[in-house]
């Protein structure tokens, strides 16, 4: 089987140049250079400061206006009614509990008492109503459309809030756990106005840290909030520096300028590990790479063909030779590793079985098809596309690769499936809620780019889950839907994406959620 690797190891010249430069530089620390632990970042007084280098900067730190990536900052400063576990399962947050009434539309949330905002004002049902009025009734919220399921928010008593939805929506608690549903101090938001609040929402959160300053393209500084309603954070201060280059972030942690470096490059991991005082964490994310087939017309309208294409791909080979071992085999059509996501037997590499399936589907000589993808969106995308081409050629499927720009990708994705027979598109898919994920990718009513996938059984299961308020029943429905989809294979799943992070060994308690948000509540520095 390994012969096929040759095909995609012929990387483009650009890739070679990239590696030729990246490798010597990343290798420099290996050339017997010692790492001095000098620190340039000012250790102000006796403050315990956590210093982080992140590659991406949020576009706004107003949870309602911003679309992220938020990384560390948003959950440190703001909280939601419903909190999430490490598997993004909804658990009590600013609300201590909730229940649905008999009409299946009205939810009652009981709020935690004794919570204060960073400016000292109390958190009450009015704050909740104010936050949602801002989301629903102004043009501020960038994803306002998703919230249109909420018809009304009523502050019934100081610590009781009612939400009324337009239709039965069992996922409301999970939805309210999203950061874009965070509770802000509406008085401060009103006083500052959206532009100012976007950059300096000082005093407006209830989280364990409060904003000191944000210097765009440079850093965000946060202080511990001493009146936090849960256990106080162990560090006094957090400084997040925005460093776009992965190699620069590696240099910073090697030089001792930061304690945590987010997303170091795969090539740099080895030299970081070799220093002895830096740990590298590889964690699962909700995201999978998918090759989404236009299933409405031949040849992809046959299940055997789709399964064959899955069996033809060697996930492990792709992960080890292209992704530098950062990735896992996909075992679910849902968001990986989430509460509610079910895992199944993977389509393990088996070209013989794949060929047999093609024969029984009536394609003994294979067929022609095309894959469109946007180059350069994630590290290794070109090579993964080439790998798919090489693997499929082994079972006689002749794949043409077509690089397109993002606009074309979206435009073609919006065309009815019948207009693009024989097409598949390379995507990355992941979201923080299993229901949302399955609905938008596999429900035939989905507003998202149509692959033409329509399976009545899946539709029924997803509809039933959406209006089922019994948690166990709902999870069972989602699991059943995922099983049907997995068997049906409307996508080819080359692998699931993992994330990386490096931290100095004296840091503990860092929690990374699979949606890439980071929780600092329990971080300590020894």
């Amino acid at each position, binding site marked *: 089987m390994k012969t096929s690797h040759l095909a995609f190891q012929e990387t483009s010249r650009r890739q070679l140049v990239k590696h030729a430069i990246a490798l010597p530089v990343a290798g420099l620390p290996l050339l017997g250079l010692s790492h001095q632990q000098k620190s340039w970042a000012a250790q102000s007084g006796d403050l315990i400061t956590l210093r982080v280098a992140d590659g991406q900067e949020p576009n706004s730190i107003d949870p309602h206006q911003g679309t992220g990536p938020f990384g560390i900052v948003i959950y440190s400063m703001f909280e939601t009614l419903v909190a999430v576990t490490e598997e993004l399962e909804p658990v009590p947050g600013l609300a201590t509990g909730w229940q649905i009434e008999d009409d299946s539309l009205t939810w009652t949330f009981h709020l935690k008492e004794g919570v204060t905002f960073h400016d000292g004002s109390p958190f009450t049902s009015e704050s909740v109503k104010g936050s949602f009025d801002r989301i629903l009734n102004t043009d501020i919220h960038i994803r306002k459309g998703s919230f249109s399921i909420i018809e009304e928010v009523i502050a019934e008593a100081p610590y009781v809030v009612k939400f009324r939805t337009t239709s039965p929506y069992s996922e409301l608690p999970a939805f309210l756990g999203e950061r874009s549903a965070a509770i802000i101090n509406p008085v401060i938001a009103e006083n500052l106005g959206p532009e100012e609040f976007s950059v300096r929402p000082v005093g407006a959160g209830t989280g364990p840290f409060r904003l000191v300053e944000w210097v765009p393209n440079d850093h965000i500084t946060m202080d511990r909030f001493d009146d936090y309603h849960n256990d106080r954070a162990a560090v006094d201060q957090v400084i997040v520096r925005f460093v*776009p280059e992965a*190699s620069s972030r590696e*240099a910073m942690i090697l030089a001792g300028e930061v304690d945590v470096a987010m997303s170091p490059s795969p090539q740099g991991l080895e030299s970081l590990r070799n220093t002895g005082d830096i740990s590298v964490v590889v964690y699962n994310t909700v995201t999978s790479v998918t090759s989404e087939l236009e299933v409405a017309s031949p040849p992809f309208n046959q299940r055997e063909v789709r399964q064959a294409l899955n069996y033809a791909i060697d996930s492990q080979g792709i992960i080890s030779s292209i992704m530098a071992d950062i990735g896992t085999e996909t075992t679910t059509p849902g968001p990986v590793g989430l509460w509610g996501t079910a895992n199944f037997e993977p389509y393990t590499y088996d070209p013989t079985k794949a060929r047999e399936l093609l024969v029984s589907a009536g394609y003994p000589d294979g067929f022609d098809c095309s894959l469109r993808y946007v180059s350069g969106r994630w590290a290794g995308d070109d090579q993964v596309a080439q790998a798919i081409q090489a693997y499929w050629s082994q079972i006689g499927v002749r794949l043409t690769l077509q690089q397109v720009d993002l606009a074309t990708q*979206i435009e073609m994705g919006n065309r009815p499936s019948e207009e693009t027979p024989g097409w598949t598109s390379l995507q990355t898919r992941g979201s923080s809620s299993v229901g949302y994920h399955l609905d938008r990718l596999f429900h035939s009513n989905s507003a998202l780019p149509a692959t033409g996938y329509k399976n009545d059984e899946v539709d029924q299961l997803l509809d039933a889950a959406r209006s089922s308020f019994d948690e166990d029943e709902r999870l069972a429905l989602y699991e059943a839907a995922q099983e049907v989809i997995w068997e049906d294979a409307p996508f080819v799943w080359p692998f699931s994406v993992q994330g990386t992070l490096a931290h100095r060994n004296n840091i503990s308690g860092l929690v990374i959620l699979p949606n890439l948000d980071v929780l600092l509540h329990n971080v300590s520095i020894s």
Partner: protein
Amino acid sequence: MTGFIVRRILAMIPLLIIVSIFVFSIMQLAGGNAALVIGGTDATQEELAQITERYGLNRPMHEQYRTWLTNAVQGDLGQSLLTRRPVTEEIRTRILPTAELAFTAMAIALLVGVLMGIMSARRPNSLIDNICMLFSFIGVAMPVFGIGLALIYFLGVHLGWLPTGGAGGLRYLVLPAITLSVSSIAILARMTRSSTLDVIRHDYVRTARAKGLAEGPVFRGHVLRNGLIPVITVVGLEFGSLLSGAVITETVFSRPGIGRLLVEGIRSRDYPVVQGVLLLLAVVCVTVNLIVDIVYMLVDPRIQGVG
């Protein structure tokens, strides 16, 4: 003299209009969906449509251009799609780190480059000349980010002498300024060397020597005075490449400057920011070249009034 300057300034106007059209269309033609950037990958089609409507992304291009130019002339470059802050504000908060970097790098390049060129020219084919020219070969050939990363690893990580990135005092300026100046040093050194050598061969230099002038005064008064004139042109051109080099340097050294703003803007299809920054860079380049022309005229009276 005044007439010349006025003519040159008037000539800038059509040039800037052409540049503005180019700047405006380049991002539009580059494709990519700004609505998707604003909405995030989780946004539904409905939300994307709302965003497109709200930001006028669906209006015809010439209409968008007209609005943009009318506002730009009045100092309003629009709002960043991503942060929703005024573009002028985004630029204002980042102009200082970039100016600091560009001027420091220019100063280093002038000092070191011209000095190297002169040293080489005084003793052509000597050891010093060979070393200087070897350095300038390497300097021209090495990509800016390669130099930057090498300096970060040796001086920042290995020796721990200087911070690897960020902005702050002078210490933070050293590595990026050196990185940025290397290729300009190389070009200035070669330019100075060749134009100086050119002058040395002229009759009036031989005459000066023949009339018994010492080598020092000959070099300062006759050779350099004339040999450095072409160098001034190169300085003007190099300023432009320093600005483009700053784009990379600021990213590698994570400095919050104009270049970084541009890179992030391009990455996220933030049209107003990219257009605003490019326009600013174009204006700066054109202005610097105007200044160079004026200086040129002051230094070399022969050019008076031409152009």
